[in-house]
């Protein structure tokens, strides 16, 4: 009886909610001008004949994310940065790892060998996702999240201590991530810094030349399309996100007994 009552309530909720959505959907229609915006994005993403408006990237999503609404993405990166800072603050003081000596660490040799092969392939795929972010779907965040799967696999299959002994420590990852964020900050103002000594007017987060500012990063280097700042944004975002996720994985996989021993040591 209670099951049927619950089912009816859930069903009524779903039907009522979809009714509200249908009614609301009729009123919140974007105006015609906003609808035209999507057309302009597609038209201007890669358009060598409109050099003052284009991003010179065939990937419309990346050109929106890092150019048309670049400031928004920089703030998103800052939010991610703060989230990682929060998790590091939660895990502060846990620095001394006591490695168990007699126990066999990790899974069997077969799984370890397969992981050795696949971890390298994961990093390669992640680098290709990130560095081709301005040509094909993908980008710095997606590539970094993919690359962070490799340390996660190594933590699960080889153990936490293996990664630390190989030098992938929290401090190194913190350094890499700070390097990535500094890179993003520099790329965001690099056109402005280039334009400043020449006395030309330029904007923050500018990529290609604009109607009132004739300066921009080159779209091609040696015949290869790099879309100005987009390639550098993707590269630095890749490092920042990969290192950030690795820090979180390292922190959440600290074995509880190492933590407990530390606590007991403090009490004595």
């Amino acid at each position: 009886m209670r099951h049927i009552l619950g089912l009816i309530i859930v069903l009524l909720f779903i039907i009522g909610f979809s009714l509200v959505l249908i009614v609301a959907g009729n009123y919140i229609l974007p105006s015609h001008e906003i609808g035209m915006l999507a057309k302009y994005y597609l038209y201007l993403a890669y358009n060598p004949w409109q050099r003052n408006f284009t991003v010179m990237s065939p990937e419309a999503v990346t050109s929106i994310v890092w150019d048309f609404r670049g400031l928004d993405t920089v703030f998103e990166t800052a939010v991610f940065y703060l989230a990682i800072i929060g998790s590091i603050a939660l895990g502060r003081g846990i620095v001394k790892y006591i490695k168990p000596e007699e126990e066999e660490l990790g899974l069997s040799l077969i799984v370890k060998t397969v992981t050795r092969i696949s971890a390298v392939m994961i990093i390669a795929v992640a680098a290709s996702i990130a560095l081709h972010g301005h040509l094909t779907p993908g980008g710095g965040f997606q590539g970094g999240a993919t690359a962070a799967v490799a340390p996660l696999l190594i933590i699960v299959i080889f153990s936490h201590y293996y990664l630390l002994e190989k030098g992938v420590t929290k401090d190194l990852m913190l350094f890499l991530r700070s390097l990535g964020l500094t890179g993003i900050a520099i790329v965001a103002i690099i056109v402005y810094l280039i334009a400043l000594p020449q006395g030309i007017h330029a904007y923050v987060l500018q990529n290609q030349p604009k109607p009132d500012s004739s300066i921009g990063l080159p779209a091609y280097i040696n015949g290869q399309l790099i879309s100005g700042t987009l390639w550098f944004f993707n590269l630095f975002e890749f490092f920042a996100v990969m290192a950030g996720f690795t820090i979180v994985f390292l922190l959440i996989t600290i074995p509880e007994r190492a933590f407990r021993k530390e606590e007991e040591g403090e009490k004595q």
Partner: protein
Amino acid sequence: MIEDLLVIIGMIMLGIGAVADLIAAIGLNRFKNFYLRLHAATIGTIWGAFVPLIGASLIAAGSPCLGVYRWFVAGGGLAIAFLVLILAPAGSHALARATHRSGLVRVEPCVVDHLNEDMCVKEG
């Protein structure tokens, strides 16, 4: 000529994959314990995924109507086939080893278990 041969071999491999997937599904349903079902599941990933992927790459390589992109399809298929080939057995091995070592699932019915005699539950 060679292209027709590639397509025919690819089709045969796709057929083998379909039959193997059916056998693996029946095995997964009918086998008596966890370890045997894991064996059936791995049949489904090697004969039912690795072999058809190779077949699909061969068909792509033997279809000039796809243009130059057929080499991308074929190469992608081969790379994925290699990954499935090494990852699927490692996964089922890790599952079986962890389950047996932790003593979570007993081998039942069992003929002989050299790793741990206590886990072996003989029939009857």
